[in-house]
């Protein structure tokens, strides 16, 4: 049985709410502090992308129970401008800022699974999952 809760992202402080939601879920599922911080950072990055580039959208956090495995999935949805060249965006060193802004490839590396779908002009749907080990 999977459960899901969402936070609307329209201003910067909604990023904090999304982080809080994600951290609570991660803690509840039994993730350690380092993984909690990593999951929270991934949420932060995705929420920030929505806030900066799409204007508004939402972050949903899903608890996953798959057989004996437990995990958390972050879903970031927006109906913003979408991503034109996905191949380019997923390239390392593409983003200009040095660190956290490194964007999607960085988020992908923080998590276990990562999927992005985007239609230019219609929006973007990003899903990232981390499993408890």
């Amino acid at each position, binding site marked *: 049985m999977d459960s899901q809760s969402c936070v609307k992202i329209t201003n910067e402080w909604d990023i904090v*709410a999304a982080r809080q939601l994600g951290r609570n879920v991660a803690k509840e599922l039994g993730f350690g502090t380092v993984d909690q911080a990593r999951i929270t950072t991934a949420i932060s990055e995705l929420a920030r992308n929505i806030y900066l580039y799409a204007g508004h959208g939402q972050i949903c956090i899903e608890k996953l129970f798959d057989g004996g495995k437990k995990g958390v999935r972050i879903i970031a949805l927006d109906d913003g401008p979408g991503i034109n060249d996905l*191949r380019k965006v*997923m390239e390392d060193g593409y983003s200009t800022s040095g660190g956290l802004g490194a964007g999607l490839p960085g988020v992908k590396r923080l998590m276990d699974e990562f999927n992005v779908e985007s239609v230019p002009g219609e929006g973007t749907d990003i899903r990232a999952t981390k499993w408890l080990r």
Partner: protein
Amino acid sequence: MNFRELMDSKYKEIIEHYLNEQDEKALYLGQKFSRKSIEHHVSPEEIISLHKSVMLEMEPNIPHHVLHAFDILLEVMIGYGFAYREHQSLRSKQQELNNEIDIASNMQQTLLGTSIPAVEGLDIAAVSVPAKKMNGDYYHFVQDENDSVSVAIADVIGKGIPAALCMSMIKYAMDSLPEYRNEPNAVLESLNRVVEQNVDASMFITMFYGVYNSHKHLFSYSSAGHEPGFFYNAHAGHFEDLDAKGLLLGVDKKAKYRQYERRVEVGDMIILLSDGVTECRTEEGFIEREDLVELISQHKHLTSDEIVTNVYKELEKLQHFELRDDFTLIIIKRIS
């Protein structure tokens, strides 16, 4: 005032905020601080030193064990600082190299550029996308005064820069043999000699060369070990392999090539491709040639241009936008 001057007090503020409220906002501010400090090339050992001094200031009675232990943490973090500085340098090097490769790939496009022939009764389209920035696939059309269309499609075994360099050679070699352009086997034999002579022994090239006579609607072709194309027989409503035997270019300088012929009726299609199309790997394993035929078949009522574009887009998505090999697909459709 710049970030470096402010960072001490800023960091202290965040810590104080967190210790008072223990809330997510302070942690978020911590993340923003991190972004800023990286932007300003503050290295991780400086962060440790900063943390230690803020602790000492806030908690003058901090147990001296806890205080001194920061020296070890700092020492360990110096190693990470090493990696971090190398990262910054690699990043700018990578960008420089990327710029170079962008320029080179533009040059390559100019050099290898070909235009789709406009011939009464034929609908021709091609798509060619490199897996990396430089293309190791190559295709070329030439339309002669009698409305014969010759088409070449080639693939260097290998990808990236070396493959691209090799392809430029093929292009020059092709430019200098216009006499027997209409005899596929002679063209391949001649190119084979050039490749054998000029290219590193570890590099091989596969090539398919065909000539479409648009008066007789006869397609003659030869292949040097190239991925077989397809022939869509409109009357029978099915796809057949465009089989042709022949050794790769560059293996044996005396290689001979056989020439094949095929009559083309209205509605028929000639489909040429590189192995990057058929060896497209998805989560469920490789795409089979039958899957590809199925995909083309779904779109066969469209124009050649729409077919190649749709097939490319669907295969690109199946591979999560990571092409594993250069991708080239050409369709020649007889429409009248």
